[in-house]
């Protein structure tokens, strides 16, 4: 029976696939840990920046910057989509592209201009397939996005926003909430809303919390060099860059998790298939043996 050999062949190939998916799962786990560490290390900077902004606000400086001001008429909206360069990560790319494409069609209803930029080969090909024109593509971001590369994109967006070429900038990425929950979201990056000065209690640095007791009595009167507003001019773009960098880091971490989960279930599924195939294979082999015995007995009986 050719069926037996076929079954065995299939079982072998499924076994190989299982080996591959298991390895990919392990790789994704290692990368996830690395990406996670990087994301954790990056929070120090954001914390300090928020602290400085708060101190500036506390000292009575008015927080105003061109990046914080919403334009009166929204004519051009840019959207930046952060997807992965590689597939085999479950619904990660698909759901993000869906969210982004939806937002893009919403944008097109209200604004008549704007660029669509996509990072990641998967997103690029998905947008091309959907017939959505892309102005800029980036493929250099993988599991460890570098700040320099992100800063370049950020500077360009800042320039476009400040010079009035664009009135709003949205970014679509997968936000990392916890290691078991990541959601594809679209957020408005510019006008920048990341400087939350209204609620000083929510963000306070570790150093400040240690001395909360005396903090209320002894308020630090900061000396500003050259002055508060000049510092603000620099802080806001820096904060924006850090914010965009955070989006890239989140996307990288989420991608690795998505791949980890996808590969884990693929490995498990392969195991189930192997089990099923083995069962059918054994049964087929047994029935073949039985049949052969029957034939031999039949032959013997015919002879006798």
């Amino acid at each position, binding site marked *: 029976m050719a069926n037996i050999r076929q079954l065995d062949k299939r079982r072998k190939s499924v076994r190989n696939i299982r080996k591959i998916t298991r390895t990919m799962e392990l790789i994704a786990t290692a990368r996830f840990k690395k990406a996670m560490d*990087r994301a954790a*290390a*990056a929070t*120090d*900077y954001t914390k*300090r*920046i928020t*602290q*400085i902004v708060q*101190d*500036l606000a506390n000292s009575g400086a008015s927080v105003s910057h061109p990046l914080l001001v919403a334009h009166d008429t929204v004519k051009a909206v840019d959207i930046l989509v952060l997807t992965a360069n590689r597939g085999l990560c479950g619904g990660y790319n698909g759901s993000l592209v869906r969210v982004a494409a939806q937002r893009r069609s919403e944008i097109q209803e209200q604004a008549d201009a704007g660029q669509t930029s996509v990072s990641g080969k998967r997103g690029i090909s998905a947008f091309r397939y959907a017939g959505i024109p892309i102005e800029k593509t980036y493929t250099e971001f993988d599991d460890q996005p*570098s*700040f*320099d590369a992100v*800063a370049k994109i950020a*500077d360009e967006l800042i*320039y476009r926003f*400040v*010079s009035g070429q664009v009135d709003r900038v949205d970014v679509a990425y997968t936000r990392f909430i916890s290691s078991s929950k990541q959601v594809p979201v679209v957020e408005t990056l510019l006008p920048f809303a990341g400087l939350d000065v209204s609620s000083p209690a929510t963000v306070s640095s570790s*150093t*400040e919390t*240690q*001395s909360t007791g005396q903090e209320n009595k002894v308020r*630090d*009167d*900061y*000396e*500003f*060099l*050259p002055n508060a507003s*000049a*510092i603000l001019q*620099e*802080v806001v773009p*820096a904060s924006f*860059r*850090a914010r965009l*960098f955070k989006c890239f880091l989140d996307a990288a971490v989420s991608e690795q998790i998505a791949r980890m989960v996808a590969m884990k279930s693929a490995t498990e599924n392969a195991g189930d298939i192997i089990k099923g195939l083995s069962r059918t294979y054994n049964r087929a082999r047994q029935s073949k043996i039985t049949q052969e015995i029957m034939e031999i007995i039949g032959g013997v009986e015919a002879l006798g």
Partner: protein
Amino acid sequence: MSSDTSVHCIVVTPERTELDAQCESLKLPMYDGELGILPGRAPMVGRIGFGLLKLQSATGEQSWFVEGGFVQVTRDGVYVLTNRLLKPEQIDRKSAEEELQKATEMVANTPQTRSVKERALAQARGKLRISS
């Protein structure tokens, strides 16, 4: 400040905390020149230019190139926020020259583009100064 005789200096970049050290005093490359910090410095927030951050400790002086950013002096320590922290050896004179050339060629016809150009120029000049 963590104690009366030493300064706790922490350098953070957007990617990670690069440096966390105790020293006797340090010199910061501010936007308008060098600024020394001794233990017990009054709280301050300032803008940093492009230049060398020098840490003076018992073992000697160490220096790093910082690329713009801010400094916040609190009673716990000196926090330097910069885009990049490099060892002076890592700066290549040739590439710094190229950057300066590029920055000089930038078109600056609006206030925004002018500030971008000025930034690029200051950065390239700062690097060039260190490398020579």
